[in-house]
């Protein structure tokens, strides 16, 4: 395997991971504030349609991306109004929204299906793209990769370093304590839900305008939202870990394609199915420390404990009840 080939594979991983990373980061922001947005998959698909339609209509892919973000925020607004202010279950509303958005996207996008349209094109940062090995992957192929990395930096910085980020985390850990300190809890949750929806909407735009360009039935990004939801949980609600999760999932998908070329004897379907169980098993290993059986074993064989990665930590307090088994 040549260096060029390996570097091309790495570039493919970053490219495929970009929208996944955006969607997962969006859900991270939402859940760190205490709102579980289960409409992710529908949001990504609907935003993909909206972004492509607008980009095609006005000929500018960046306006299309903006429209995707707007569509994502609008769907999040529906969830927030029902879940936060009208007392409906945000889980139930989220599920139904997913199905609703999917059907609506196919219906509304019928006119632009299988039509040509603009895309975000490629981009090469002079100088940086000449860095050996990673330069091409990060700075030499598409604005999509830079966008996803910028979002990662921004989300990490916002949550860890800014005062509004601190308020958001506080609300997600204990809404009651936050309210007792004068924080307008519902408003904070509304904002983080909208921001999360907008990021997921961007993810949809990245799919239809760059990663899987065009619109159709199917578009090709179906299921990405569900994967993003899983990545957030397994990444322990930490932006950097979540980003690694997205890269990892993209990596096993790319590896599947690469292996398919190398091993033509095996069925192609195998390589399409394989990433999912591999994902589950790997993420299980990452969070092994949470399992009682593992802690037992590590007590007997201390080496095991030292080999395993540190646990990512638990769910934000406000949503722990919905996600942890509690025993």
């Amino acid at each position: 395997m040549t260096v060029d080939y390996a570097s091309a594979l790495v570039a493919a991983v970053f490219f495929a991971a970009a929208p996944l990373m955006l969607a997962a980061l969006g859900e991270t922001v939402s859940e760190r504030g205490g709102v579980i947005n289960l409409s992710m998959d529908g949001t990504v698909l609907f935003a993909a349609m909206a972004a492509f339609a607008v980009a095609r209509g006005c000929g500018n892919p960046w306006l299309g991306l903006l429209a995707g973000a707007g569509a994502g925020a609008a769907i999040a607004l529906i969830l927030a109004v029902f879940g936060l202010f009208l007392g409906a279950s945000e889980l139930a509303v989220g599920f139904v929204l997913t199905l609703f958005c999917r059907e609506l996207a196919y219906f509304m996008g019928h006119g632009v299906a299988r039509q040509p349209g603009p895309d975000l094109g490629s981009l090469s940062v002079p100088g940086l793209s000449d860095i050996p090995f990673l330069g091409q992957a990060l700075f030499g192929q598409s604005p999509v990769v830079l966008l996803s990395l910028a979002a990662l930096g921004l989300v990490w910085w916002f949550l860890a370093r800014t005062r509004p980020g601190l308020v958001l985390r506080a609300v997600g850990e204990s809404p009651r304590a936050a309210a007792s300190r004068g924080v307008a809890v519902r408003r904070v949750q509304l904002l983080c839900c909208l921001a999360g929806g907008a990021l997921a909407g961007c993810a949809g735009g990245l799919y239809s305008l760059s990663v899987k360009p065009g619109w159709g039935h199917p578009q090709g990004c179906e299921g990405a939202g569900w994967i993003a939801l899983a990545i957030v949980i397994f990444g322990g609600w930490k932006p950097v870990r979540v980003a690694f999760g997205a890269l990892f999932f993209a990596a096993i998908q790319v590896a599947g394609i690469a292996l398919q070329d190398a091993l033509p004897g095996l069925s192609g379907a195998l390589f399409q199915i394989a990433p999912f169980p591999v994902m589950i098993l790997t993420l299980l290993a990452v969070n092994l420390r949470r399992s009682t059986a593992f802690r037992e074993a590590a007590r007997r064989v201390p080496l095991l404990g030292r080999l395993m990665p540190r646990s990512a930590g638990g769910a934000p307090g406000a949503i722990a009840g919905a996600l942890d088994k509690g025993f």
Partner: protein
Amino acid sequence: MDVVLSHIVKRFGQLIANDDVSLTLEAGRIHGLLGENGAGKSTLMKVLCGQLSPEAGEIVVDGAAHARLTPDAAAALGIGMLPQDPLDFPPLRVWENFALGGGPVLTRREARSRLEAVCSRMGFCLRPDVPVADLTVAERQHLELARLFDRDVRLLILDEPTSGISPAQKRTLFAVLRAFVSDGRRLVALVTHKLTEARELCDAVAILRHGRLAGSFAAPFDTQDVLTAMFGAEVAATATAAPPPPPEPLGLGTPVLRAANLVIADDKAVLRDVSLEVHPGEIVGLAGISGGGQEALLRGLAGIARSVAGELAIGGRDLAGRPATDFLAAGVHYLPAARMEEGLFPGLSLLDHVRLAFPDKRREARAIFAERCVGRFRLTNTPNARADALSGGNQQRLLLSLIPDDTRLLLADNPTRGLDAASIAQIWDHFRERAAAGAAVVFFSEDLDELLAQAGRVLVFFNRDMAADLPAASLDPGLVGDLMTGRSTAAANGGGSAP
């Protein structure tokens, strides 16, 4: 600052928590708000600090009347509360909790420097980068106080601040409170169900009973008057009487419980190297600050937390490493501190609880309920009621009535927490009955006075280690408090002997 609560009414559904309560709080004084659990003290204070809106009445602060306050408005007026269960953000760091103090959020640099300033002024020691989840109860209290002092609180409300802290930590807290009101402009409202604390600290007390103001007294106050106002004449008589002495062990034959070099792995903590014998008829109290290891011991002895090394025999049966069902079969029963969360099934009926507890007598459940739960344990509810409709006292009565009579070892984690005086008396009478019948009782109570009054022997825990094993004769609150906070060791005092 003067604060007047005027004709406050607060209802929760059918329950009237505050029924036309009027109270005047003057600057420069420490006001006590006394009453037994469920009397409406906390509700009244939550109304005062804006966490609850009253249905009627008004809050007058320095002459300005408010129909209700929000947490923001109360903070702006200088009213701050230290709630009974810390209302903070455990996964966040100390400085982050401090920065979110109400009002504008502080930057990292501001928060750190102001935290350091307050701590040095008050004599607190708090490391800014530690997650709050890793702090002790006393340290969390210090953090909350530091936050309130920094935001220039003028009326400081404390709800049962001494539960879970040691006598020495209590003295520090009281000194801080006295210094706080000494300038004559600020004031403290102390919510407590302990008369001794009110006598020690307060300049005036108001007493709530069943949601109504039952009396107010200025220091020095007459104990009997206050108790009568708190409990009514009959209960007050029994409350002042000293509890009967703890029973003697029934003989040093076979121990009910024998542990040697036992290692217990609980969810959060590992308790190492416990060696211990408990005999029939003993009532053993466990002392320690929350997380000191005593909860892990109870859960380990109940078989809920696993024993990973050492020996554990109950009634002569070797149970180390066995599943919890074997412990139940050996006659071990456990009363958890979180009664509703760990002891009961909130959505099931009381009758279902009886059926689950006595599976081979399912058909007689109604009879058992009438005879046992209602007849013997004076549970006051109907068999078809859901468990989550029970009051705290009735929850504990139900749990006790489900424990079979042939129990050898009864383990109880804070059995009287949050209960009213009549229920507390009933629980201790019941434990003494069980001990007299040959069972052994091992319990943990955060209330050191209760612990020392009821236990015939006290095991002190510090830092997930059994620090001392003290017989009743050598029990002294100061010594036990120092041992459980690590200020002294058993060897240094010669007060007891660790086995």
